[in-house]
């Protein structure tokens, strides 16, 4: 069954959207969309460095994304606004990645796979990494759910309950780096944020509790993955962008349904 590239592609997409769906809720609640975008853009630099030093792509992406997050903290501590700091970092990382790749001979072709995804070309190893990473992300979120939620709602409430909200923020940053690595081959660096934001936003329409929203986001994400892959095979369109277009369709329907209900 795993010999079929379509099956592998669908499974890879499903693994990625389960993780992005739930983590995406935190990204939406904490308004970290632009932060997620910066980390995803940093992944391009990570890929370039991995190719340059013949490292595993996944390792390179995670390390670079974390470095960008660290530099971001330094910059904002030094008085830069978050908005400007993220803008500088995201685009610097992306541009630097493209420059480095152009210096490497023969790497240009493989980079576009990481920019826009190439889920139908994932191998068994990729599949294992994607599902392994996704399960780690989901497991940590499950384990830390209540603390993360409290810290997200109000850092002071967290402190009063003996929870250090800065540690929780750091944890979310690490999970975000992991998710970027998990999703880069599925939708590509440029569209990872879409998988974080769109399913969670669609889920918001129907949810009454944070847990309800997380589950609904996973369902919306899974639906988008199935419809998108299917559509890309039918219309011969790139799979990653097709998944995002499907997610956008689900979001639109959810908005209309939400309006009709109220």
């Amino acid at each position, binding site marked *: 069954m795993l010999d079929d590239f379509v099956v592998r592609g669908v499974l890879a997409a499903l693994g990625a959207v389960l993780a992005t769906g739930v983590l995406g809720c935190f990204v*939406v*609640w*904490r*308004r970290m969309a632009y932060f997620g975008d910066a980390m995803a853009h940093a992944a391009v630099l990570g890929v370039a460095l991995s190719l340059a030093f013949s490292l595993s792509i996944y390792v390179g992406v995670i390390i670079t994304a974390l470095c960008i997050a660290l530099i971001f903290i330094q910059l904002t501590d030094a008085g830069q606004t978050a908005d400007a700091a993220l803008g500088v970092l995201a685009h610097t990382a992306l541009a630097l990645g493209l420059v480095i790749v152009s210096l490497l001979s023969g790497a240009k072709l493989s980079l576009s796979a990481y920019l826009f995804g190439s889920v139908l070309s994932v191998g068994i190893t990729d599949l294992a990494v994607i599902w392994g990473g996704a399960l780690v992300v989901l497991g940590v979120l499950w384990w830390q759910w*209540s*603390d993360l*939620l*409290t810290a*997200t*709602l*109000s*850092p*002071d*409430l*967290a*402190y*009063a*309950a*003996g*929870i250090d909200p800065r540690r929780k923020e750091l944890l979310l940053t690490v999970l975000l780096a992991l998710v970027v690595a998990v999703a880069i081959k599925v939708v590509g660096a440029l569209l990872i944020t879409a998988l974080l934001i769109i399913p969670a*936003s669609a889920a*918001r329409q129907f*949810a*009454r*509790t*944070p*847990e*309800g*929203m997380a589950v609904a986001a996973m369902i919306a994400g899974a639906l988008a993955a199935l419809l998108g892959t299917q559509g890309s095979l039918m219309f011969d369109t790139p799979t990653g962008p097709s998944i995002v277009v499907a997610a956008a369709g689900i979001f639109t329907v959810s908005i209309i349904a939400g309006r009709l209900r109220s």
Partner: protein
Amino acid sequence: MTLLAAEKVAFRYGGHNVLDRVTLALVPGEIVTIVGPNGSGKSTLLRVLIGALKPSSGAVTRAKGLKIGYVPQKLHIDQSMPLTVRRFLDLPRRVSDHDACQALETAGLTDLGLRQMAGLSGGQFQRVLLARAIIGRPDVLMLDEATQGLDQPGSASFYRQIEAVRTELDCAVLMVSHELHVVMSASDRVICLNGHVCCEGTPEVVSAAPAYRELFGTGTGGALALYRHDHDHHHHDHSHEAAE
């Protein structure tokens, strides 16, 4: 037994002393109110006490296993987060329906469980914050300007609720307020803060103290007030030593 104490706590921010050698101690069952003008460091002091801020010098000590119930000045719930009242009461730890119900009742509410937090009125919202804070039977209940946005009768009834909560849970209450008249009547002890502790004592003592009158501009200082000033400052220094 001291539940929570600050000893010579200073907090500097941006080259400015927000808190200057503040010493206070809280014992079980008492209601202590911190009053002071805007920018006097009231909220900063509470945030130091809950551990959200590290004092620049001095120390905060807590009794072992101290449970703090904290009602923040305001809580913004992002509209992207769906949250029912019942689910909110489960933060940071799940509680039984029985406990949740009882806490809501103690806070003067009933039957709000399924409502969204975002759909509550100001008064209901504050009471839900109070219910959440008392749910684990805290040793210390801390309230930071908890009646902001409530009208006069609303905040008066809120403070009556606090007294009822204290009686029921037998916890210490530490609150910050600028609503002097309402708060004073409900307190066992008042601490007047303006960066440093200006004066402290029973509501009667503090409201008569010149330092307090100077800050809040009520009444004029006379000969008696002058006498009390000295007396009060002596008392104040003495209590410092006693607390150390």
